[in-house]
């Protein structure tokens, strides 16, 4: 237990707990010390030096993010000398940064811009040579622009510490330091899983999603196509933040109405396909469970996880559910069942997905998902992109009248909604699997054990006297830790849900940037987004996927039954080991990685 000590900040004394850094203590006391490379979920870097403070008795400034407080410490956070030093540091960053704020995608959303404004940098003293590197546009999902990079290292730490993908590193050194994949490989050819978390934590525009908004506007104006959109559960739970709302507001009605105003002919809901996924996945699980199939079965909804698995865990490919993700199921059904239903050549359908995710851009382009020579989804835009499009099209998003999605692919159960939160797929699957197996309805359907932000969650339930052990991991790093257990003890679990992003899809790489003075991927915001989805679930009468009448109809009219040949053609896929091989380092400390 930490003792209470006395420190002074800016000449006033405070009693605080001893086991804190200067920054932590100051934050709690209402002094917001400016910062840049610091992120509460990542290791301490101490690199940007923006958070320096003066401690009496010390010759040099110290970084408040890393320096521990001690009894009697006298701290100054705002002296003239400090202000000038911080200002000069930010100017030095600006001096090596393109001066194109007004054409930059992060304009008004940029931490560097905000810092510069708050420092009052009105003149430039030290301008000189700027670095210049080519933009890396090779990936379908993530753009890397080293010119914008200020070397705070947040992306590198995110990629290695939280996601454990270890795609990004700082290469070279000094003024020539660049963040890049190994061998300066193009992102599209690297082990990048396209999860987009680097974008989420980047304070500037050094990482961005590949932007398809102009393309989409263009296509929306094409009179010869039928424009169909689907949108993921988490989009509705987060997009409000892009319009200045606090996290946790469900904006489903506003979104549907806006899609129609943007020019979409049909607005469908990915939650419908989530229900469909559950039908297939729960059946697949039971099939494996009853017939000595490969267990544990691992979910395959998350595109970043898909790529991660193919590179890092080729030995577990047989454990992966063959189900496509909800987005891809929705796309496939749109271009088959739905096309037939409205009597349109599926080639004339523009299938658009609005996702909380950058990796879905990658997924949509996977050749394995092509059916009848067509991609299921033609264009994927993120929550951020659609928010911009709505603003750009002049739609009054916040005051618009709510509308509902279209049939037959727009209606969903509560189980489909909770897909967006970590543990949601598992919970939804259990609701259905239980009934499919036992013929009885599961009453207690909210499974608290697998909700929440703990890295790896475990649960067990009994179905007809048989114990089923399940595990849930969110974020690829947690997934790694879980799968290492599985490699060692393959019988430990029967069913595993893995989501590539922290918090699940609500924390996706395509979600709105952190608001002013908020932290990217803040746990509170993630929880509120998830809560919005759980509220949505609770508000529905139908909370089990198999009870969704449109789903039942789909099976009756088209798919026949789960795991049928038709289902396999449209809703299932296969995976194979991919190069380059991803390597998870040994866990012992000593590699510095």
């Amino acid at each position: 237990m930490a003792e209470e000590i006395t420190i002074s900040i800016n000449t006033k004394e405070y009693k605080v707990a001893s086991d804190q850094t200067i920054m932590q203590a100051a934050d709690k006391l209402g002094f917001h010390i400016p910062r840049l490379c610091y992120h509460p979920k990542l290791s301490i870097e101490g690199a940007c030096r923006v958070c320096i403070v003066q401690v009496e008795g010390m010759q040099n400034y110290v970084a408040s993010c890393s320096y521990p407080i001690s009894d009697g410490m006298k701290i100054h956070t705002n002296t003239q000398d400090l202000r000038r030093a911080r200002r000069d540091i930010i100017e030095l960053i600006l001096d090596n940064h393109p001066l194109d704020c007004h054409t930059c995608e992060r304009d008004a959303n940029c931490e560097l811009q905000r810092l510069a404004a708050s420092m009052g940098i009105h003149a430039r003293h030290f301008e000189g040579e700027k670095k210049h590197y080519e933009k890396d546009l090779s990936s379908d999902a993530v753009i890397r622009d080293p010119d914008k990079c200020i070397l705070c290292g947040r992306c590198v730490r995110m990629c290695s510490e939280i996601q454990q993908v270890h795609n990004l590193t700082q290469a070279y050194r000094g003024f020539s330091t660049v963040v890049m994949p190994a061998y300066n490989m193009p992102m599209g050819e690297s082990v990048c899983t396209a999860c987009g978390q680097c974008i989420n934590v980047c304070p500037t525009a050094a990482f961005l999603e590949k932007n398809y908004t102009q393309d989409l506007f263009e296509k929306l104006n094409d009179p010869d196509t039928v424009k169909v959109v689907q949108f993921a559960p988490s989009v509705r739970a987060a997009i409000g933040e892009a319009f200045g709302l606090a996290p946790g507001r469900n904006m489903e009605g506003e979104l549907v109405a806006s899609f129609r105003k943007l020019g979409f002919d049909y607005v469908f809901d990915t939650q419908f396909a989530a229900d469909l996924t559950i039908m297939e996945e729960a059946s697949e699980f039971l099939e494996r469970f009853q017939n000595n199939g490969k267990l544990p079965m691992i979910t395959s909804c998350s595109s970043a996880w898909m790529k991660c698995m193919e590179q890092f865990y080729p030995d577990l490919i047989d454990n992966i559910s063959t189900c496509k993700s909800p987005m891809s199921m929705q796309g496939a059904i749109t271009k088959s069942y739905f096309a037939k239903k409205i009597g349109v050549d599926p080639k004339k359908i523009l299938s658009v997905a609005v996702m909380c995710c950058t990796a879905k851009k990658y997924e949509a382009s996977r050749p394995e998902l092509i059916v009848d020579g067509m991609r299921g989804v033609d264009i994927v835009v993120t929550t951020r992109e659609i928010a911009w499009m709505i603003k750009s099209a002049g739609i009054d998003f916040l005051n618009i009248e709510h509308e509902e999605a279209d049939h037959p692919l727009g209606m969903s159960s509560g189980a489909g909604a909770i897909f967006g939160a970590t543990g949601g797929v598992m919970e939804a699957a259990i609701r259905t699997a239980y009934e499919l197996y036992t013929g009885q309805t599961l009453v207690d359907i909210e499974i608290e054990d697998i909700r929440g932000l703990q890295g790896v969650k475990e649960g067990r339930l009994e179905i007809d006297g048989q114990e089923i052990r399940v595990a849930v991991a969110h974020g690829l790093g947690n997934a790694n830790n879980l799968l290492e257990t599985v490699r060692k003890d393959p019988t430990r679990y029967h069913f595993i849900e893995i989501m590539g992003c922290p918090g699940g899809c609500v924390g996706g790489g395509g979600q709105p940037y952190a608001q002013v003075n908020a932290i990217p991927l803040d746990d509170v915001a993630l929880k509120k987004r998830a809560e919005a989805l759980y509220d949505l679930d609770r508000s529905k009468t139908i909370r089990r996927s198999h009870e969704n009448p449109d789903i039942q109809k789909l099976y009756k009219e088209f798919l026949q039954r789960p795991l049928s040949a038709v289902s396999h053609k449209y809703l299932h896929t296969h995976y194979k080991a991919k190069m380059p091989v991803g390597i998870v380092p040994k866990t012992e400390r000593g590699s510095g990685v």
Partner: protein
Amino acid sequence: MTQIVNEDKKNELYAFMDEVSQERRSNSYLIAVLHKVQQLYGYLPQEVMDQVAEKMEIPTSHIWGVATFYHYFNLKPIGKNIVSVCMGTACYVKGADKMLLTLKKELGIEIGETTEDKLFTLQEARCLGACGIAPVMMINGKIYGELDSKKTVDIINQYRKAAQTDIE
């Protein structure tokens, strides 16, 4: 023939990695392994770094970060002769910069580059420890001291001549 040589190199490298893998915290030996790679291949070829990554269970990005951080490691194939010009203070004060200029001109390359005939790679060194005979340069580990432009060019020509005789 080259195949056999390469196979030998690979075996030697793997033997070395096997040896360090016996140690505790074996992946802390990455830099030692990269030294070994460079000793065997003259530089760090990408496919060999991949092998190191796989064998030592270290992400390639991490290896790349290390390989590019340390100036000692060559990322490109190097010439037959490595010419390192000492740019330590003692040599600098005694005119190493002029000598470097002469070398750049004579070889037609910049620091870190290799001549087209793959005969010379020009490098800059920080103090070779021969301050007494500054300015100095080192070619393949042999130190030449008290240089001036003419002497420098003469030495380079000796190596050219030697290479010529080798071919003949």
